[in-house]
């Protein structure tokens, strides 16, 4: 499960007020290199909840990867930024697309309901009494 997927998931369990963002508890994760595509990141960024993404990077032991506040677009997409090691766009790309959570759980912030992540697949099925 990429952190991008975590960013789009919410808990819909009965009793949840917003159910978002889910607290990520990662017990096993890895990184897989993906070629950076600036246009793709540009199109994706407006859909990302930044605070949820930062919290997720901390959950996988990368507390320094992203700043608390989203950097300005001029900085992220500056000319040549994609080729600079450690640039904002490289960090964002790494966080969203290269980190994979293999085992762990997603916890509803309102009800503490745990959704298990097994072999990279979060199971968001609710029990009958939770719908």
């Amino acid at each position, binding site marked *: 499960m990429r952190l*991008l997927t975590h960013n*789009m998931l919410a808990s819909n369990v009965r009793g949840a007020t917003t159910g978002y963002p889910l607290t990520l508890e990662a017990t096993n994760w890895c990184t897989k290199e993906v070629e950076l595509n600036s246009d793709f990141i540009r199109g994706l960024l407006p859909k990302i909840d930044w605070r949820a993404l930062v919290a997720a990077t901390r959950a996988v032991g990368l507390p320094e990867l992203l700043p608390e506040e989203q950097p300005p677009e001029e900085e992220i997409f500056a000319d040549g930024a994609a080729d600079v090691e450690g640039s904002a766009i490289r960090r964002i790309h790494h966080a969203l*697309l290269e980190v994979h959570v293999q085992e762990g759980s997603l916890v509803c912030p309102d009800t503490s309901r745990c959704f298990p992540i097994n072999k990279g*697949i*979060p*199971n*968001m099925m*609710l029990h*009958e009494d939770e719908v």
Partner: protein
Amino acid sequence: MEAATMAWTAAVVGAGLVYWFVWVMGAAEVKGKRAVDLKMGSITRDKVQDKYTQYWSFFRRPKETATTAASAEKVPAFVDTFYNLVTDIYEWGWGQSFHFSPSLPGRSHRDATRVHEERVADLLGARPGHRLLDVGCGVGGPMRAIAAHSGSDVVGITINEYQVKRARAHNRKAGLDSPRCEVVCGNFLSMPFPDASFDGAYSIEATCHAPRLQDVYGEVYRVLKPGRLYVSYEWVTTPLYHAEDPGHVECVHGIERGDALPGLRRQDEIAAIAKEAGFEVLKEQDLALPPALPWWTRLKMGRIAYWRNSIVVRVLTLLRIAPKGVSEVHEMLYETAQHLTRGGETGIFTPMHMVLLRKPPAAASTEEEAK
């Protein structure tokens, strides 16, 4: 020497027969999985027979009891069981898109399927930068076609964890891995997505599994952004269906039983249910009507292919390559094909009643006022 020659001859003839059986006779149908890879989804081998018996006994009940509260609550579990049992056989016979499409003159089933899927993207006005929701995505055939055709990203939800794995594997092979195509294991009656998070949504012959269509439409409405569109291909009975005709009832009940449906909706109910959920109905059309060619022709390849597949499955079971119960599942699917074909020929049933719905743009201000 004589004995050895005979043994070798028998082996070669046997291999030739198997080759002819599977690859020549089955060339048109063998897509996706190979016959020897039948694993019956995530159910362990020894449980296939039990799961099949349990499934069948549930759906053998009269329709009236199937819709009571207690039975309706079991539907998600049985839909999950159903797709565990049939996913591998479906892929073997259908490819990766578990749905019908109008036949097109001079075009293959594969092409017709693709056109049917791409129509969804066109109706939604999908384009790069959009994130679409696939409600009940199966192993993701439509998702990949729509993502490739429109440039949109697609997030699919399926109740079956085995299908999530299959879908993701196919996505990787197609070069459409997350985030182009992502699959989530969940129930479309209670989706794990925030409000107003999708630019469009579609379902292809999936909402028929919902005990109450209102519930799935309500969920799609919630997760759709204001002003955005939802397309659904629905399984419904048409006005030609008469509940007092025993032949019609048997046919429809056979479809429900064979496809894990809690009950087929009537065509004229769909728009009312959508409006109840808050949608505007922009378009309604039975895509099965002429000039479309019959959607059920692909089921009629039938008897020889069934006999061939049946023998392959039974031999594989005998050799313990395929677990017990696969033959029964295969036979059930064949019976269901007969009911579907009859439903199509008589015109009492269609799997492609298309509705194009829109969440009103004003929904945003309503929500803001509520907060």
